């Protein structure tokens, strides 16, 4: 249809069209250059992780490791990487579980029962807009008072506070898309409410729960300021382990690179798999109505 219209009207060719093949080639070249720019620092980190000690400090640097080695990974693991991964796993997993336990019922209430939810969910989400530096002093003083400073529980609670608004919002969006009639049918059949939750709502919202859970894990995994301020020597998350390693000793770039790769590898794979949800959550702040 459109082809016919075009031929009939014989419009003057636009600049975009006249460039044709050359234009396409130019576009692809530009995009490839952009991709290189986007990946270069990461790739360099990857390369460095495989360089033996001697090659780390050669100037000018060698492009590829001449004698590639895995020694940085084991060394990086023992100088703090392993500890960081353990603590980050503990904190991120626990806070995610807490987020889901608190968030799912709240999301359900916002999605189904509570009519002026727009304003309330906007208020909840706006908590997420705060730069973490603003609440962090209050957090620090509160944690000192409660004995939560430098504890797993403290950091878990802080990350739950950070991620809960987003989890509620995402889950509410998901639940809103489940047809109401399923629940109504269960109710008509006289099923008690918790059966309805267990047998209908939870299985149907499993993809949403997974998404919200993984995102909450990722944000907790990447977070730095809270863990820098709210913990000392007892709890050392991965970003903090990296920063400590980097700032308080002559950095061994290879080990740093190795920890960095381990820190971001799983997340990168996950984020490629869940890109659309990730973008959704990044833009969620403004969608809270």
């Amino acid at each position: 249809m459109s082809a016919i219209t075009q031929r009939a009207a014989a419009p003057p060719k636009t600049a975009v069209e006249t460039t044709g093949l050359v234009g396409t080639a130019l576009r692809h070249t530009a995009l490839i250059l952009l991709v290189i720019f986007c990946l270069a620092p990461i790739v360099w980190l990857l390369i460095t992780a495989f360089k033996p000690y001697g090659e780390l400090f050669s100037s000018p640097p060698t492009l590829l490791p001449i004698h590639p080695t895995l020694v940085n990974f084991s060394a990086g693991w023992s100088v703090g990487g392993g500890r960081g991964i353990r603590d980050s796993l503990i904190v991120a997993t626990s806070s995610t579980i807490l987020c889901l336990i608190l968030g799912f019922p709240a999301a359900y209430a916002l999605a189904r029962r509570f009519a002026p939810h727009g304003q309330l969910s906007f208020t909840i989400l706006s908590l997420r807009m705060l730069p973490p530096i603003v609440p962090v002093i209050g957090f620090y003083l509160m944690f000192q008072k409660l004995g939560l400073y430098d504890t797993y529980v403290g950091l878990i609670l802080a990350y739950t506070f950070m991620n809960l608004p987003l989890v509620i919002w995402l889950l509410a969006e998901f639940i809103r898309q489940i047809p109401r009639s399923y629940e109504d049918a269960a109710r008509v059949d006289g099923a008690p409410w918790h059966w309805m939750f267990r047998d209908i709502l939870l299985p149907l919202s499993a993809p949403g729960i997974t998404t919200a859970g993984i995102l909450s894990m990722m944000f907790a995994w990447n977070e730095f300021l809270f863990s820098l301020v709210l913990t000392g020597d007892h709890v050392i998350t991965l970003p903090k382990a990296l920063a400590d390693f980097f700032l308080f000793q002559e950095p061994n770039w290879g080990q740093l690179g190795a920890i960095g790769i381990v820190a971001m590898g799983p997340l990168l794979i996950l984020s490629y798999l869940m890109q659309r949800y990730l973008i959704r959550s990044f833009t969620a702040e403004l969608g809270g109505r």
Partner: protein
Amino acid sequence: MSDVTIGYGRPRKRGGKPRAAKGSGDRGTLLLLGPALVFLAVFAIWPFCYLIYASFTSYQMAIPVPIHWVGLGNFEALLKTARFWHSLAITAAFALISVPLQLLIGLGVALLLNGVTRGRELYASLLLTPMMLAPIVVGFAWELFLNPIYGPLNALLKGMGFSPPAWAQSPVWALPTLVLVDIWQWTPLVMVILLAGLRSIPSRVYEAAKVDGSSAVQTFFHVVTPMLLPYFAVAFVLRFIDSFKVFDIIYILTRGGPGTITQNLAYYTYDLGFGRFEFGRSGALSIIQLILLTLGTMLILKFVAKRDLAPKVTKEAAR
């Protein structure tokens, strides 16, 4: 049967639809919503009260002197120091230089991507990589990349006959380096929002413009730009709010230095509170930031953003 409103809006109207579940009406809603709300309220209000309290006192951890009330003294002292104004300027630089550049570059890349048919998804995925990474990892990947001695960039530039600066360590280049890293990490977000906008414009619109004899440039400025405006607004607000948060990359790349050159408000707050344990001063600075951010966001939302369009943008961007 009245509805629970928890202080927001009007009670819900029931469209005459009978509810089968009796016991899960209002009390049920409260039970479901309650724990999360209580949790959020406790963690929002309690620290906030501490913050307010600290900002009006001489709260210092290092000095074992009794804490006393200083009223607005902390605010007054802050407003008198050059460092405060400097850190405000650095924050403004991020908001006014980095964010518009991200919008411009993001638009360019989105147009490029929209112009190719093959491999668009793959390009988009790869270009989104930077924003998926932990800012700390980004910080030291760049530290390594820009390292004046062992880094590849300066080796390359030297090879080409330039004498490159020491980037993050240089008084002149430290701030531009941070801006560059911020742009590198967050332009992908802008790109993906604007690409969603571009993709939401039906091809009919372009065809109609073409039939009317409008050139590509005219079409862009008179047809595409107005339709992209809400997407621009969303990207701008998000990045503007985030520009106040810049901390991690400063911490890793420059530690606010050389000297105090690259300290923005967030870093200055951290330095006051946890570098020198001047919680009173630091708390006052937090409150100033909160006020600035709220005012700025309200102004922008009022003049630029049409919030009703935001859910649409969110959905398009997720596609």
